[in-house]
């Protein structure tokens, strides 16, 4: 006759003994481990901008406005291109006429109110173009300040705006340190770049990436170690904008200098 105590002991031993071979069946897949290292999500969209390649043609801005139904002649845009001209006297001249929707049609810098500042070629130390767009931050301040839950972050990292739910208070417009948010002139609600969510969720690239003829803009999934964008971010010297704000921006830049704000 088996005693109660020894029955419990033996059954626990058998259960434990059976569990060992089961656990040893599962092999470590380093790739899966890499992907699950942080939170186990399969997709996290990130963006890579190469400022060395950008020529300031503005085709990205044109495509973005058409693709995302932002009124073409309104002076608001989800993405834009900035021109930086650093002259030999140490000054930095920055402009982005109409967000560079039509490219840069003059050598003069647009200093606002219809005035232009002419810069002679021999005075230029360095000059380059920097495309800007929503950073789809890991700590998005625009989402934190929304009082009604109209803006939120999806599982794959994209920050979206619920047009039916937005009350147009403008907290998010003020809260974004990168100035990417604005009011949609037609819907009168907060509007922002969403990495062309309708395109990336169909396996396409964003409209700006497809429009770029120089490979200055690229989109990728940082959770996929084989993604060429991930490889560049992991192995090359990339930088982000306004890191000191703690927003953990997910748009990475190659060739960024201290003049870029």
């Amino acid at each position, binding site marked *: 006759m088996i005693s109660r105590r020894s029955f419990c002991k033996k059954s626990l031993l058998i259960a434990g003994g059976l569990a060992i071979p089961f656990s040893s069946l599962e092999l470590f897949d380093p790739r899966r481990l890499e992907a699950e290292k942080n939170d186990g999500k399969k997709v996290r969209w990130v963006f890579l901008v190469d400022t060395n390649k950008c020529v300031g*043609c503005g085709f990205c801005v044109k495509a973005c406005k058409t*693709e*995302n139904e932002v009124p073409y002649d309104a002076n608001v845009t989800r993405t834009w291109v900035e021109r930086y001209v650093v002259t030999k006297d140490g000054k930095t001249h920055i402009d982005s006429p109409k967000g560079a929707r039509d490219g840069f049609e003059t050598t003069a810098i647009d200093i606002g109110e219809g005035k232009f500042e002419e810069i002679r070629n021999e005075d230029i130390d*360095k000059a380059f173009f920097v495309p800007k767009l929503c950073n789809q931050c890991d700590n998005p301040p625009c989402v934190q300040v929304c009082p009604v839950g109209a803006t939120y972050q999806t599982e794959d990292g994209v920050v979206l705006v619920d047009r039916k739910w937005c009350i147009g208070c403008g907290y998010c417009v003020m809260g974004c340190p990168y100035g990417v948010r604005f009011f949609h002139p037609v819907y009168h609600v907060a509007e922002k770049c969403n990495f062309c969510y309708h395109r990336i969720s169909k396996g396409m690239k964003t409209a700006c990436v497809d429009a770029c003829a120089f490979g200055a803009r690229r989109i990728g999934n940082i959770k996929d170690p084989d993604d060429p964008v991930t490889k560049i971010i992991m192995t090359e010297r990339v930088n982000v904008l306004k890191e000191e704000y703690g927003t953990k921006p997910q748009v990475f830049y190659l060739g960024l200098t201290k003049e870029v704000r």
Partner: protein
Amino acid sequence: MKNHVWRPLYVVLLVIAAVLVTRKILVPADFGIGSRGYMYGWHRPSNEQEWKEVSVKYRTAEYCKQCHPEKYNEIKQSPHANINCENCHGPALNHPDDPKVLTVDRRRELCARCHFRLEYPTSGRGKIRGINPKTHHPELECVTCHWPHDPRKEGHKI
């Protein structure tokens, strides 16, 4: 206790009930905490689907290639291989059904987006061959002399 003491309490209870009922009616059923937690994921999940349903306007050169392979092959073997069809021809949308014809942007300003000469030594722009549109045959369209699908070839002429 007397009735006039209890009466305000009934009013307060009635207001609370009214607020709860209106909230139940107005707030969508799926509203709640998403995968990113309360701070970043408090939202209406059906809105994600609404964003996914936005129509695609730029169909990319892969779409154009299906019916216009000769044009596609010509530009892909030219110095303009990196330029997508829709940059100049406009978004394809549902072409050829809607719109039936795409309007080509033949303005000088379109070519000048890249070929307006800017002497920027530290940018890719400085490496592109360019002109000043104000002095370089300002009366003509670029395509008169330059064939855009292969700039090594001659243009339309007049």
